Every structure is written in structure tokens, then in C-alpha cells.
């Protein structure tokens, strides 16, 4: 019976925006639902894990926890960014517990089995007895690190944990085409251009809030002085992404009216245009003429999300003071959103809440996301 109720509720989510309800409370508060959604929404799709700047140099290795899985983000000696399960193929010991530079091989701290940074098992000391480093039963060629399929786009490292998703370029062909003009080298601003927000909310609420511009004049009154509600438009690609665009993007100006260099070759649209898109499931992207950003949402628990924010520029070097000012500006905006994301999370404990309703004019990007969630949950069975 509970299953029937759940399916009916998902059917209600999938109705046209004018009559649809939002996702039921359990999708925000129930630990079992969180685990089910992890399978249906985050492991079987291309989920954001990190950015390439997390491992800037060959040999850099960072252990990561994603949905409870121990993963290792590493830039191998050839410069390729890879993601492995952070465990030894011998006894399952965690290989790299802290971020560090791998100087040679990844050596398991337990029995010293060694792996190349590309994941190849290169040494099994004493596996055949003391001083005997081979054994017929242990085929090194089949015991490399377990690699998680990964893809890099706009310097975000996406992973498909269960390996079932079609190729990234196929899944996200629409947005890749939409932003083809922005397919330019992105330079991470460095330590002063990244920050983490720890938010007591379900990760989907961070997506939902990011999707729409409806809240801008109320939650971001400072932003509204130059980016008014009527200057925004909705962006919807059902099943893939949704968000909003602005027609009045204004460049940040320094004390001497200096600005960040533009990305080369952009068309007229981007002189005052900016677009802000939630790429399902968990990556929030922004593009503008002179800088871009990516927010990777780490779904820690049903009521806990870490937002990893990264700012990118068109040139390798930019003015330090301008970067700091820009990071402060964006941090202020994203911190203003915390209150509503946490408030909606607390609200989801209200018994009998039907998931709410959507403004057909203003909330359709959010409904687009809910519809995607409901579609995948129905398909997950």
C-alpha cells in the first residue's frame, strides 16, 4: 500500500506544472529514500565529484567519500585525472587516507601491494612466501585498482558509479551544444576562488533553489538592484537540466574600473547575458563573459549537503584583489540561499505536506527537476 501511495504521489509530480505537486516529504527526510535515490539519481547517472584543480599536478591524490564510498581522485603520472575505488584489491584496505603527493607508486599500508598512479598492480611483495613476489594464483593483470568511469567537462570531474549511463557527451549533448561558445579553456582561480558551504539540507533543495529566479528579489535584495526579476528567463531541458538566464549581467569592476578578461570569441548574446543551470543530478553551473563557476553538491545525508564552489577565469593569471572581491560577492549570494534551503528542509518534517505547488510562470525549472527525479524513481522500480 505504501508503495502505491508513493507511485501516486510521483504521478502527481509528473503532471503539468500548473497542477503538479512537488516531491513528497520522504524524499527529503527518509534515510531509506536517500539511499534509494542515491542509486536511482546519483550512481546511475553522471554525478559531479570534484574539479580537476583538486589534483593540479601529476601524482596528486585526494581521498573522497561519495555516498559512503571510499574513492580516490588522482592525477596520474601522464597527467590524466582518474577516479578509483580507494581500496587495495588484496584485503580491501583503504589505500590513501589523506590528501598527498604520490611520488612513485600507491603502496597499501597493510601488506605493501603497490599500484601505479594509473591503477596497475605492480608489486605483490612476499605473496608467494618470504622473498617470493609472485604466485600463480595472483594475476597482477586482473587485479588493478577498480576504476570508476569518469568524464571531465568544464573542469568538473563527473563519475558514473554503476557504469550504466550512456556516454557523457551523449547524455548532455544539448547543454554542450547550447554552451558551445563557452567551450574555452577554464582557469581555476586557485585557493582564493574556492569555498565550501556546509548546509543542513537535502541536496535536491540546493538544486531546486538554484534553478529558479523567483526568489531573487526576496532572498538577494542586493542582486535585485541590478538584476531584476523581469530580466531573467527560464531554461528547461526536460530530463537533463534546468535553470535560468539573465539579460543584464554586469561585469565586476575594480577601483580603477578594471574588469576580468573576457572569454574569446563570444557572441553578442553574452555581452550582458549569463546562464545558470543545474545539470542533473548535482552540478550547478554558471557561465558569463568573463568568469564561470561550478558548484558540486556532495550529498552527505538526507538532511546534509556540502556545496563545493569553484570560480574559473578566461586567463591563467588574474588580479588577486579582483578575484577576492568576486569570490566574496558570490559567497554572499550563496550564503543568502542557505537560510531558505535549510528552512525548506525543516519544513519537510511537517506531516501531511503534499509537496507544495509550483508557479507555472516562475517555477517551471524547479518542476522540470522534480519531474526528472520522479521519472527516474518510477523507472528504478
Amino acid at each position, binding site marked *: 500500500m505504501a508503495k502505491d501511495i508513493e507511485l501516486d504521489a510521483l504521478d502527481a509530480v509528473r503532471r503539468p506544472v500548473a497542477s503538479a505537486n512537488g516531491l513528497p516529504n520522504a524524499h527529503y527526510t527518509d534515510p531509506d529514500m536517500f539511499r534509494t535515490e542515491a542509486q536511482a539519481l546519483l550512481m546511475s547517472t553522471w554525478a559531479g565529484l570534484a574539479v580537476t584543480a583538486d589534483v593540479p599536478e601529476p601524482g596528486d591524490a585526494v581521498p573522497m567519500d561519495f555516498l559512503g564510498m571510499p574513492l580516490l581522485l588522482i592525477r596520474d603520472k601522464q597527467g590524466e585525472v582518474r577516479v578509483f575505488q580507494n581500496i587495495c584489491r588484496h584485503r580491501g584496505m583503504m589505500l590513501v587516507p589523506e590528501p598527498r603527493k604520490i*611520488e*612513485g*607508486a600507491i*603502496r597499501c599500508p597493510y601488506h*605493501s601491494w*603497490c599500484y601505479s598512479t594509473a591503477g596497475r598492480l*605492480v*608489486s605483490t*611483495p*612476499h605473496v608467494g612466501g*618470504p*622473498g*617470493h*613476489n*609472485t604466485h600463480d594464483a595472483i594475476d597482477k593483470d586482473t587485479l588493478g585498482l577498480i576504476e570508476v568511469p569518469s568524464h571531465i567537462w568544464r573542469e568538473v570531474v563527473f563519475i558514473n558509479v554503476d557504469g550504466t549511463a550512456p556516454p557523457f557527451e551523449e547524455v548532455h549533448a544539448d547543454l554542450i551544444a547550447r554552451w558551445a561558445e563557452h567551450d574555452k579553456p577554464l582557469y581555476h582561480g586557485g585557493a582564493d576562488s574556492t569555498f565550501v558551504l556546509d548546509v543542513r539540507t537535502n541536496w535536491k533543495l540546493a538544486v531546486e533553489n538554484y534553478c529558479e529566479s523567483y526568489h531573487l528579489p526576496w532572498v538577494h535584495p542586493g542582486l535585485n538592484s541590478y538584476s531584476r526579476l523581469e530580466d531573467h528567463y527560464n531554461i528547461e531541458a526536460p530530463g537533463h537540466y534546468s535553470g535560468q538566464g539573465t539579460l543584464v549581467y554586469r561585469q565586476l569592476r575594480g577601483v580603477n574600473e578594471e574588469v576580468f578578461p573576457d572569454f574569446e570569441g563570444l557572441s553578442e548574446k553574452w555581452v550582458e547575458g549569463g546562464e545558470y543551470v543545474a545539470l542533473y543530478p548535482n552540478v550547478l553551473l554558471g557561465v558569463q563573459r568573463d568568469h564561470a563557476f561550478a558548484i558540486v553538491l556532495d550529498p552527505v545525508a538526507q538532511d546534509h549537503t556540502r556545496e563545493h564552489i569553484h570560480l574559473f577565469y578566461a586567463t591563467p593569471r588574474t588580479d588577486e584583489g579582483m578575484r577576492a572581491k568576486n569570490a566574496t560577492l558570490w559567497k554572499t549570494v550563496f550564503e543568502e540561499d542557505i537560510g531558505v534551503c535549510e528552512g525548506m528542509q525543516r519544513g519537510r518534517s511537517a506531516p501531511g505536506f503534499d509537496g507544495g505547488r509550483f508557479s507555472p510562470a516562475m517555477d517551471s525549472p524547479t518542476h522540470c527537476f522534480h519531474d526528472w527525479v520522479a521519472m527516474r524513481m518510477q523507472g528504478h522500480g
Partner: protein
Amino acid sequence: MADLARRLLDAHARDDRKALVALYEEAANCANDLDAACFYLTHAWVFALDAGHSAADALYDRLHGLGRA
């Protein structure tokens, strides 16, 4: 040999993997039988791999030549 053992423990305490490569190779060269020598050579090789030490290939070749890698 007691002095070598002390130096090995000291290198372990400092996590000085470059020193461990040399010391375990020294221990291998001092060993009285092939199994003991290969035991120490294995350690030298593993710490060389770990540290990205230039001796790693030569140590592998030595073990491989003895049928131990």
C-alpha cells in the same frame, strides 16, 4: 648487523624511504642465504617503488633474475 638493524629502525621511524631503499639493499647484500637476501631485496624494491626512487627498476631486475618477481 646490529648496527644495520638500528639504522633500519631509525629510518623507519623517520619514514625516510630513500634511506630504507639503501639499507634494505645493504641487508640483502649481507644476507647468508638466498631467501633472506630476496626478503630484504623485496623491501628495498617496494620502498623504491613507493618513493619513485631510480633504483626501483634495477631492484626489480635483480629479483626477476632470481625468479622472485
